[in-house]
């Protein structure tokens, strides 16, 4: 799609004009067809990251992502804090999906230390994780709407997610950054009538999100902007190592809740949504279908949950693992989130590596944006389900 690059005559011109430059300055672009743009950290169409884009007219020739504007050094900080005191800062990379980023951490420590989680805690963890997935996806859809200029699509999800944030506030006490999961279960039990309230709100929420099809997914403008743009074929999706909704939109059926079930996902009926097109439209639709699936999972979990029981297995103070390492992964809103914990008999982890879905999908961004028109950039870029704060950790 990119046009032929130019002619040699401009090179001759530039060496002559470089003689007139003040000393110390250098001409950067020898080729004066190609312009370098900064889609920077302050841009209506980018999040907290920068894309250095070279355009030739209207077509993108090269794209160089420049993340790191929110790199806070989580992995280094984790080496100085105990396993339990690591929880508040480890959940901040994605504050509205905080349960899913703590999930592999808690599962890993439970494996290292060797304790078992009570049944009721497992069901409540599944419910909290699914609610968090919905809350994250709603915010992502809201920003997607704004990037495309559809401000109603900002207001509707931003309002509907407050229903679920109320539920999470009842469970954990905070709107976001719940710090609800601990190794050994969850921090505290839910209030008495939680099951009824949760069921009612989830049913109403499901009715509301079904209406998004009318304003967004069947909207001819969205279809024109996103169909057949940024097409990622099945082989490329596997070769680039993408994950989550990006992978499933290209036809690969891989959902960790089904392939490697953790907690009680093997007792629940989970259906993973797959679409074959691989374009931005499919990538924007899969998280919405996942939200509808989450409502089903929450309803099943509420039914099967044991009505009473403990919710936390107490650990000894300053839990330590052996000379061991562990890698657990979980399906979060962006894809597979894995934690590699290396322990060496001290109360602090020796090395904690967080492998997030956003960072793994980053490699698809320069690959897909080459050859696209500049106007399609927000549609393709945000459809990759990229949350910059998480990718930078």
């Amino acid at each position, binding site marked *: 799609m990119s046009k032929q690059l130019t002619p040699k005559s401009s090179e001759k011109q530039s060496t002559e004009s470089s003689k007139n430059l003040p000393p110390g300055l250098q001409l950067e672009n020898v080729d004066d067809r190609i312009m370098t743009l900064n889609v920077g*950290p*302050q841009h209506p169409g980018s999040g907290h990251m920068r894309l250095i884009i070279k355009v030739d007219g209207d077509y993108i020739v090269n794209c160089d992502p420049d993340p*790191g504007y*929110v790199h*806070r050094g989580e992995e280094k900080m984790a080496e100085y804090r105990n396993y339990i005191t690591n929880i508040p800062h480890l959940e901040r990379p994605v504050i509205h999906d905080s349960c899913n980023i703590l999930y592999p951490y808690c599962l890993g420590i439970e494996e290292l230390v060797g304790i078992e989680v009570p049944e009721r805690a497992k069901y409540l963890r599944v419910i909290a994780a699914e609610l968090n997935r919905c809350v994250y996806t709603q*915010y992502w859809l809201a920003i997607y709407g704004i990037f495309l200029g559809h401000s109603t699509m900002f207001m509707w999800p931003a309002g509907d997610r407050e229903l679920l944030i109320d539920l999470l506030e009842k469970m954990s006490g905070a709107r976001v950054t719940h710090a609800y999961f601990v190794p050994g279960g969850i921090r505290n039990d839910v209030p008495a009538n939680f099951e009824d309230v949760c069921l009612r709100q989830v049913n109403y929420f499901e009715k509301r999100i079904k209406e998004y099809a009318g304003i967004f997914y069947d909207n001819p403008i969205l279809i024109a902007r996103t169909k057949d743009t940024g097409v990622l074929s099945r082989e490329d999706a596997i070769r680039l190592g993408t994950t989550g909704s990006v992978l499933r939109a290209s036809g690969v059926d891989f959902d960790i809740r089904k392939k490697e079930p953790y907690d009680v996902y093997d007792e629940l009926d989970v259906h993973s949504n797959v679409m074959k097109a691989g374009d931005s439209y499919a990538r924007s639709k899969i998280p919405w279908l996942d939200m509808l699936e989450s409502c089903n999972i929450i309803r099943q979990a509420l039914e099967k949950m044991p009505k009473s029981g403990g919710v936390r297995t107490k650990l000894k103070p300053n839990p330590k693992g052996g000379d061991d390492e562990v890698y657990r992964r979980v399906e979060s809103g962006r894809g597979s989130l894995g934690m590699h914990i290396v322990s060496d008999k001290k109360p602090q982890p020796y090395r904690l590596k967080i492998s997030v879905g956003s960072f793994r999908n980053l490699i698809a961004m320069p690959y897909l944006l080459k050859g696209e028109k500049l106007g399609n950039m927000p549609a393709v870029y945000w459809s990759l389900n990229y949350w910059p704060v998480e990718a930078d950790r």
Partner: protein
Amino acid sequence: MLKDLVTPQNANVFLGNLGDILIKAVDKPLGMALNWGRLWSLWPVHIETACCSVEFGAASGPRYDVERFGIIEAFGSLRQCDLVVVQGTITRKMAPRLRLVYDQMPEPKYVIAMGACAITGGLYFDSYNVLPGIDGVLPVDVYVPGCPPRPETLIQACMLLQEKIKRQKIR
């Protein structure tokens, strides 16, 4: 009689005194009018620095509607904005860009430091890439504590900023 009063020698003084009287008559109501215009249309720049941006986005949502105060996030250009909300942790990579954004905004401009990380570095106080607060980079008007602050707290901060603007003098 006026011609006797105003001689070429004291014409300047006369004009100067007349000017002072006019300004004193008009200053207070003009100031109140300009301030009224400014405080009911504070437009924040669309720059998200870190995780508090989620609560800022929620504050613009239908439940905690911040648009009723005139705070509409101007997605067009930062040359028409007058408020920078520093949402969350500022890293060393982001700080020069934030200063650049602040310098490009026209006067009068205000800064709200949102979240514990923007005030003192917060939870990430000992990280290698985090600035201990935004005070060294931008002049802050209102500090909003919280990690992240609830949207209601952000709205209270905007109202405090409005009080501050009301008391500003024009000249």
